């Protein structure tokens, strides 16, 4: 009976971590996609300073989130998004609109792939 309780506790711990990861990745996608869309909006109305403030804020938020994400996900995947955000920061400073929009979309797609790859779809399980 004692071992049954141990088994149930172990399953609970594993499920807890899995659920935590699920919500963390989903929340990361929602939060950072929204911020990237906001940056695109600022750029589309030529509010370059606001865009720069926004990307700096996003980069700082991502640096904090990155540490937690690396506990659950492949480090390379998380680093790729970090790299894209740094690239976006540089594009914004250079006031290159096409590159800014392209990099925003690219980063959003990377976040989406990260989220989709963690969903319990059949193709991911197989």
């Amino acid at each position, binding site marked *: 009976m004692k071992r*049954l309780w141990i*088994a149930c506790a172990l*399953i609970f711990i*594993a499920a807890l*971590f899995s659920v935590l990861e699920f919500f963390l990745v989903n929340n990361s996608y929602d939060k950072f996609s929204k911020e990237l869309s906001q940056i695109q909006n600022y750029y589309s109305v030529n509010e370059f300073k606001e865009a720069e403030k926004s990307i700096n804020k996003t980069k700082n938020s991502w640096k904090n989130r990155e540490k937690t994400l690396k506990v659950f996900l*492949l480090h390379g995947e998380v680093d790729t998004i970090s790299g894209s955000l740094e690239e976006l920061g540089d594009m914004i400073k250079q006031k290159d609109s096409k590159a800014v929009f392209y990099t925003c979309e690219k980063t959003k797609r990377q976040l989406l792939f990260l989220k989709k790859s963690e969903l319990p779809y059949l193709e991911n399980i197989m």
Partner: protein
Amino acid sequence: MLISLFRTVLLYVFIILAVRIMGKRQLSDMQTSELVVTLVISDIAAIPMQNTEQPLLSGLLPITMLVALEIIVSIIMLKSRRFRKIICGNPVVIIKDGKILEDQIKKLRITYEDLYSLLRQQEVFDVSQIKYGIVETNGSVSLLKYDSE
């Protein structure tokens, strides 16, 4: 390398704990399913040990689930004979009244050489000395000799 070192220590402690929780001490006492689980656990643990790109949890969580499932399966096997038969199979008589049952050893895919080797390890050099020889569910061979009756 330092990361690998720390992970190795953590995983070593975790695996020892996992094997202790599963409750088996001797390799020879394990059922086939338990042996497979133990081997799989060691394989899973090796991945984050060698590849620091992988999060440590990608090793720890599957091991945790395997240990939990193994405990649950072993408890069900205690309660249900039918379930035990499905997982472990039945012991098979391969020697009866001093004669090797060919059809049984063929079913088990045991060669004569393997069988004689198993008998020699139990200090039996003549099959005719054995009343019953049984291959247990964990792969070991039990012998009932005529002179022990």
